[in-house]
């Protein structure tokens, strides 16, 4: 009987906890809406009407919902590209660069082997994307394992290099006869198939598949355990005979390869063409999502969904009210500020 009571108590506590955190989340949402409303007011827009517009454009219709999913897919993948290395204590800010390099190599595949059928070309492009992102992440991983340069700064520097390399290829060799800033449209065989009569494409399944693998590896495999050990206390892990350097390099490369998948699927699915400077901070968003959710798989899913609502809504706001695209960044930043500022209350005593 006692045992049963304990269970009940625990469950009650759990329910209370969930209710409490939901209430806090709602508070945070309200604060963000209020702050952003003030900014909208200052720039001469009606906040309530804007919010209505955002709602109908995102969750209010099937089309809007599909657009949210479209926006969510790449940032969910780049968030995983950050979350995995963070488990071994590596801070990968380089999702942006890795995504660009993945897109770059995938585009090379699409343009070179454009006679291949789709069943061969698409896997090849994804593979090339993984190689591109993985190699780009190998540089910071290797430098870290040598103890030469901190991976944060390397990935940041390489983020500035990668878009230039993409521009070099696009403007120099690959551009279409009409426009110099993009490649010709890919052949249909190089396009990821779309689903449900919408712009959602197969990369959504990549994202969910990767998320599931990440969850499984972290939870139930020896690798996951060892990685968590290294992330928790590298010195102790080393004394226990774990090959730190090997893990750092390999995990960083895998992280980069994941970001490369995001890049490849962006050019193959969303755009169908490589446009110079297409990303607009997808990699950084992935970093923030991964960080906000502490690298927790379900957290990543939920957070990237919320961020996508913000992005999609902001996109619409730009179209209908003539506010610059960058306003999305303010909305995103305000959300982050509120999360960051309230964080310690959420986490209790944990640091």
């Amino acid at each position, binding site marked *: 009987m006692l045992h049963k009571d304990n269970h009940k108590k625990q469950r009650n506590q759990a329910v209370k906890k969930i209710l409490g955190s939901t209430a806090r989340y709602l508070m945070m949402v309200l604060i963000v809406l209020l702050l952003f409303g003030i900014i909208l007011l200052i720039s001469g827009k009606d906040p309530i009407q804007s919010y209505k517009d955002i709602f109908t454009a995102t969750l209010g219709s099937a089309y809007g919902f599909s657009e949210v999913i479209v926006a969510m897919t790449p940032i969910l993948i780049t968030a995983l590209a950050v979350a995995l290395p963070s488990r071994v204590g590596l801070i990968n800010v380089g999702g942006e660069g890795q995504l660009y390099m993945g897109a770059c190599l995938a585009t090379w595949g699409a343009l070179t082997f454009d006679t291949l059928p789709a069943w061969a070309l698409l896997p090849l492009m994804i593979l090339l994307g993984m190689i591109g992102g993985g190699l780009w992440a190998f540089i910071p991983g290797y430098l870290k394992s040598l103890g030469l340069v901190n991976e944060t700064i390397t990935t940041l520097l390489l983020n*500035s290099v990668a878009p230039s390399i993409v521009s070099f290829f696009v403007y120099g060799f690959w551009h279409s006869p009409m426009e110099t800033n993009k490649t010709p449209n890919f052949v249909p065989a190089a396009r990821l198939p779309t689903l449900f009569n919408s712009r959602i494409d197969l990369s959504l399944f990549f994202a969910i598949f990767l998320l599931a693998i990440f969850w499984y590896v972290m939870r139930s495999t020896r690798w996951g355990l060892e990685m968590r050990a290294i992330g928790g206390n590298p010195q102790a892990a080393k004394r226990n005979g774990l090959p730190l350097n090997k893990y750092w390099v390999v995990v960083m490369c895998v992280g980069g390869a994941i970001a490369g998948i995001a890049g490849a699927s962006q050019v193959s699915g969303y755009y169908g063409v490589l446009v110079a400077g297409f990303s607009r901070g997808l990699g950084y968003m992935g970093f*923030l999502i991964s960080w906000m959710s502490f690298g927790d798989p379900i957290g990543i899913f939920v957070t990237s969904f919320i961020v996508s609502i913000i992005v999609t809504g902001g996109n619409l706001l730009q179209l209908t009210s003539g506010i610059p695209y960058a306003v999305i960044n303010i909305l995103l930043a305000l959300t982050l500020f509120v999360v960051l500022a309230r964080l310690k209350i959420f986490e209790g005593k944990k640091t």
Partner: protein
Amino acid sequence: MNWLPILGVFSSAIFSGTSLLYTTLGETIHQRSGIVNLGLEGILLVSASSGFAVTVISGNPYLGVLTAMIMGGVMNMVMGFLVVTRRANQLASVLALMFFGFGLSAIIGKPYVGAKINTLPKLSIPGLSSLPLLYSSLFKFDFLIILVIPIAIFVWWLLFKTRWGLGLRAVGESADTAFASGRNPFLIRYQALFLGGMLTGLGAAHLSIAYTMRWSEYMTSGKGFIAVALVIFSKWHPLRAIVGALLFSGAVAFQLLLQSSGVQISPFLLDTIPYILTLTVLIAWGGTRKHAAPASLGRVYQGSE
């Protein structure tokens, strides 16, 4: 031999290096107090846009410079609230601040894209005025350029020769120890952030009001990240930062010279040179770097309890 192009490179290095040096000095102060402010990009953009806007409205560039400085400090106070008072993760906070800066600067600057401004007056250096006009016009600097090296020396003096600077560096090395010896890490970090933010604002002001004399979205194009790299390059030392900033902007100016003299290299590849150079230097100095970095860089000070 024609010296003009080489002097041109030198002059343009000084012009473009000034904003970089101010920003680097600001970041040196942040990092010496233990805060890695990678979101400089956002602060630069907000300062540059607001300074430019005020210059357009008031017609007075000095007012613009002042506004940019204050905005830099204020932006960093937001950051301070997050990472010092709320003890939030630094990297995430600065990235959030960066996104915020992207958005805010776009809104502030939007009405002023393409506006004309009164720029800062250029002062000629005595002794150089006897040179032919073509040469002496290369070396006419505004007051922000003339002040940048004295300010770098001032920052060095502040950090290394004053009690306040000692306290600041102590907080950067070990906030707990600094607290135990009677200093207030929270206050010192706020001060460091405000001062550094004002310097960053000066850099931004020079960029938009004096150097390019225009405002466009994302006009800083990675200067904030370069400044962070330069801080490491200069091993957290304000005087070495002078050399770093000059070298770096010299490399950029040299690349422009190469392009104008008809060397067939893609401008996009040339754009990557500065970053690769920085990375190379970091690798070369990798072994000794650890001893120079403030020990509790990036760590959150949890308070005394």
